[in-house]
């Protein structure tokens, strides 16, 4: 097992390396002068620009710049923000915690909604199946920012007592913090819950057709016992993997949701950094997000292999 995990981790190293190149090249290949953006204004004297270039190492060959950046990134230095002039790492970490919480709540909600509707759809069949699939088809077509906008509209029109845009930090008041994240997480989770629901449905239908389920029924186990001990257990293992794979969707969606609900997470930070052309921040966010996606995928693979002994990594 340990060997398997090490091999799987070793295989991700080239991808991590490639991702770091991609994040670096993405920022350097873009038009517009890095130094002008760093100065924060276009009316800079050539001497001042040259000084900024030397200071940022922009007068060095590109590969030297990349290696310097990579070395920094590996030691936890992701550069200095053009806007705040403070280390980007210090700006990202607290926001990353907020986004992680939002994403985790959204993933939990999506898993609950998806597993329940998928299970109902597969077990009850008939009209329930029909309604769930129709609902899934429709919900999939509603983008998360439209859901969020409609929630804000409905709350404004009919529930003025709900305060929408007051994010409360976790350590100020944990309960208020959770309450303030429920609606944003819900908007983020809807589309993901459809993917989970459809996969749960397919997985339960497949497991229900297996011989061991028939044997369990034949020896007289009640439907509740079969459901708990055989169906849910066997069908949900792949479903949890699917939920893990949705982390990229959730992180992408958090850019919109955090901006709409004024949540100070990494998505909103990206939006702000893009607006203010804070290149080191953008570069760092892109890198950190990609690394999270890769690591979550690895974690999911390993968890799956632990849960199902037949799987080889």
């Amino acid at each position, binding site marked *: 097992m340990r060997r398997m995990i090490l091999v799987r981790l070793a295989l991700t190293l080239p*991808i991590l390396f490639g991702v770091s190149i991609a994040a670096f090249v993405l*920022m350097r290949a873009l038009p517009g002068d890095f130094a002008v953006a760093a100065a924060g204004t276009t009316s800079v004297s050539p001497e001042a620009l040259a000084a900024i270039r030397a200071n940022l190492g922009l007068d060095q060959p590109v590969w030297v710049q990349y290696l310097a950046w990579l070395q920094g990134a590996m030691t936890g230095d992701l550069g200095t923000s053009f806007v705040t002039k403070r280390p980007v790492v210090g700006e990202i970490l607290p926001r990353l915690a907020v986004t992680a919480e939002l994403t985790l709540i959204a993933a939990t909600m999506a898993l609950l909604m998806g597993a329940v509707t998928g299970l109902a759809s597969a077990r009850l069949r008939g009209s329930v199946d029909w309604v769930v699939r129709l609902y899934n088809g429709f919900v*999939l*077509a509603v983008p998360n920012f439209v859901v969020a906008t409609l929630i804000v509209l409905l709350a404004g029109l009919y529930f003025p007592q709900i305060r929408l845009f007051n994010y409360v930090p976790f350590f100020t008041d944990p309960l208020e913090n959770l309450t303030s994240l429920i609606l944003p997480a819900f908007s983020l989770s809807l589309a993901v819950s459809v993917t989970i629901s459809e996969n749960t449905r397919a997985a339960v239908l497949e497991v229900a057709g297996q011989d061991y389920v028939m044997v369990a029924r034949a020896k007289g186990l009640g439907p509740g016992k079969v459901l708990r001990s055989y169906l849910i257990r066997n069908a949900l293992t792949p479903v949890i993997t699917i939920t893990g794979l949705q982390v990229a969707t959730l992180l992408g969606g958090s850019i919109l949701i955090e901006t709409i609900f004024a949540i100070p997470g990494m998505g909103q930070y990206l939006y702000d950094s*893009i607006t203010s052309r804070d290149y080191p921040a953008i570069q760092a966010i*892109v890198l950190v997000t990609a690394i999270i*996606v890769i690591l979550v995928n690895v974690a999911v693979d390993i968890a799956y292999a632990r849960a199902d002994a037949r799987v080889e990594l």
Partner: protein
Amino acid sequence: MSEAGEGRVATVPAPSARRRKGLGPRQLLLAIGLAMVAVLGVVMIFGPQLAPYSPSATSLDALAPPSAQHWLGTDLIGRDVLSRLIVGGRTTLVITVAAVGLALAAGLVLGLWSGFVGGLTDQIVMRGLDIVFAFPVFLLAITVVAALGPTIPNLIMTIAIVYTPILARVVRGPVLSVKRWDHVEAARSVGVSEFWIMVRHVLPLVISPILVETSLTLANTIFTVTALSFLGLGPPPPDPNWGGMLAEARQFMELAPWTVIAPGAAIVFASLTFIMLANGLRDRLDVGGRQ
């Protein structure tokens, strides 16, 4: 009595025959999907001619609710919401269709080539795509568009680049198995060139999953285009577009809910169209589920 009974028995076809011939719910899905595509097509081609007013003509009748003159009401500066919806739909759809068209072309070339040639080429292309897949689609799109500047050609280019890997991977999968089939070997043995085998003997057999995936990509692209516009990275004003309309209307939406409901519904309609088309096609062309 007995005649009627016999007649009834005779008209009931065997279950399998009924499933083949009848217009089952899934066939209906494809039909509705195609009808919705036709609606979007008309908006895309004839947009400006269909709009009852100029999309940028203002009037004193600001934030007016839906009425006989303004079917979907007016916005903050008295512009007709329906006209803006139709003209904005054209912009949104043109970007979507052009981007997916480009992504499909690039994905076909990459996927066919990589899958058909195989070996080291395939490995290099696929590992490159793995790296792109590590970035959430929307994160990549917003970063590139922001840096290039939000113009219509830049939006099309960016979205095409972002969706190319997804389509390339869909093309490559079936190519890997089809290229080992006997008819490919037969064609090769009679001296058909590799390029012609790829185009004439492999491509037609992998076209079904590509059609389904392209349709889903259209739905996803509607999301990406409108989401970018929603964040202010859409086509530049004053031309309307759905995402931009939704964002603009948010400030006063409690006074005039129709100004957000109209573009929101239009976005949902467009993505629903392509999702239904994809599901209908998947059933019609007998493509396995993709999850």
